[in-house]
């Protein structure tokens, strides 16, 4: 990895509570985007039970050692870190064997993350779903967090539980990414509005990611959308999230201005408050 930087590393937990809302996709894309913007970044797969970050980054065949060997002292950290070929400022520390869950403690996680923080500007921790042991271990090592959710009742409810636990653990700031937004459904009021979700969860919005088929294509290939600077809506959203994390002021997209069909326009007119 690059030489030790002067500023302390940002250690960011990426979590959601509910599974399948886009934690790992966000971690992979954000990691690549930050690296492309010049920040040395390490992504840590803390989902030891169901690891997938290696797969989304296309690094699954290059894993030799994992966090497990690093903790056991049977390899050096540098040996376990998998550097991304096209984006050398990004490295992955793969998750170990699922049996790690039996003995891993919050202190182990702190130790690993502490080592990573010495070597990077950003450490992104891909958190497992749920609010049990795995989540608690990962959260113990984090300084700040990004909660990702989708505009669905189950995902928002689970995000709320996670936010409560993060508050207790003293992780802050906690910011929100709203994923898989469908502008047309929102315009038709058949999907929770962005404001509804931010009001309910009372978190600042770090980014909005529109539903985008290209996400699936990119995971098929093991090439995150941000890798090639693709212009698809989700790629743009991930890049913007990275820029906002770096302190840049980037305007959020307005879903109501996206792809407005006639139906949505009519709906907007007839749903206007009359009295």
């Amino acid at each position, binding site marked *: 990895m690059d030489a030790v930087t002067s500023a302390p590393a940002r250690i960011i937990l990426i979590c959601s509570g509910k599974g399948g809302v886009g934690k790992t996709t966000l971690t992979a894309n954000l990691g690549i985007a930050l690296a492309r913007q010049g920040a040395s970044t390490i992504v840590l797969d803390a989902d030891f039970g169901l690891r997938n970050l290696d797969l989304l980054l296309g690094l699954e065949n290059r894993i030799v050692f994992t966090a497990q060997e690093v903790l056991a002292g049977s390899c050096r950290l540098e040996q376990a870190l998998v550097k991304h070929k096209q984006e050398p400022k990004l490295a992955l520390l793969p998750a170990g064997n699922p049996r790690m869950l039996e003995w891993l403690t919050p202190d182990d996680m702190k130790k690993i993350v502490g080592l990573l923080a010495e070597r990077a500007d950003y450490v992104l921790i891909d958190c497992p779903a749920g609010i049990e042991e795995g989540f608690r271990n990962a959260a113990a090592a984090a300084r700040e967090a990004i909660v990702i959710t989708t505009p669905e009742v189950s995902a928002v409810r689970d995000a709320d539980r996670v936010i409560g636990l993060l508050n207790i653990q003293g992780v802050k700031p906690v910011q929100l990414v709203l994923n898989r937004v469908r502008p047309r459904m929102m315009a038709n009021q058949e999907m*929770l509005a962005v404001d509804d979700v931010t009001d309910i969860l009372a978190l600042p919005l770090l980014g909005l990611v529109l539903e985008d088929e290209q996400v699936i294509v990119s995971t098929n290939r093991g090439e995150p959308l941000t890798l090639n600077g693709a212009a698809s809506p989700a790629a743009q959203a991930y890049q913007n999230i990275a820029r906002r994390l770096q302190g840049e002021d980037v305007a959020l997209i307005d879903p109501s201005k996206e792809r407005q069909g006639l139906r949505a326009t009519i709906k907007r007119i007839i*749903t206007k408050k009359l009295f």
Partner: protein
Amino acid sequence: MSLLEFLQRMIGRQAPSATLAKQRLQLVLAHDRSDLNPELLEQMRREILEVVQRYVEIDLEEVDVSLETEDRVTALVANLPIRSAKPVRRPEPSQVPPAPAAAAEEAMPEATEPSPTMEALQRAAASLPPSEENASSSGDGDSVTASQPWG
């Protein structure tokens, strides 16, 4: 009400689901965050009514005790419309609940100026855990609202 809601009401169709989603979420999160199950809430409701009824006559049809949540703060909101402003009867000394340990922890501005004509909002505390019991009763207002935020 919007034109759409009006039309939907006319033809008996359901409102857009996003509104329903928000309402359902707010309700379920208020319960999640407070860790109160419906039975406990019902028990608390009964006991609150019992206490208030010792002092005033309440319109039982209109009573509403519920959890509301805003900005991650959950509050128990009890709306108890009072039928007769004057106390029904003085409580027996034996029935008098133990004097409140302290006045409500936070001074609630709404409670400062009860007037017979305006709706006096009286906030009696019901903080968790239940052992820290605070209570105070309203003057001759028309309604009693109890509210205590918790995190």
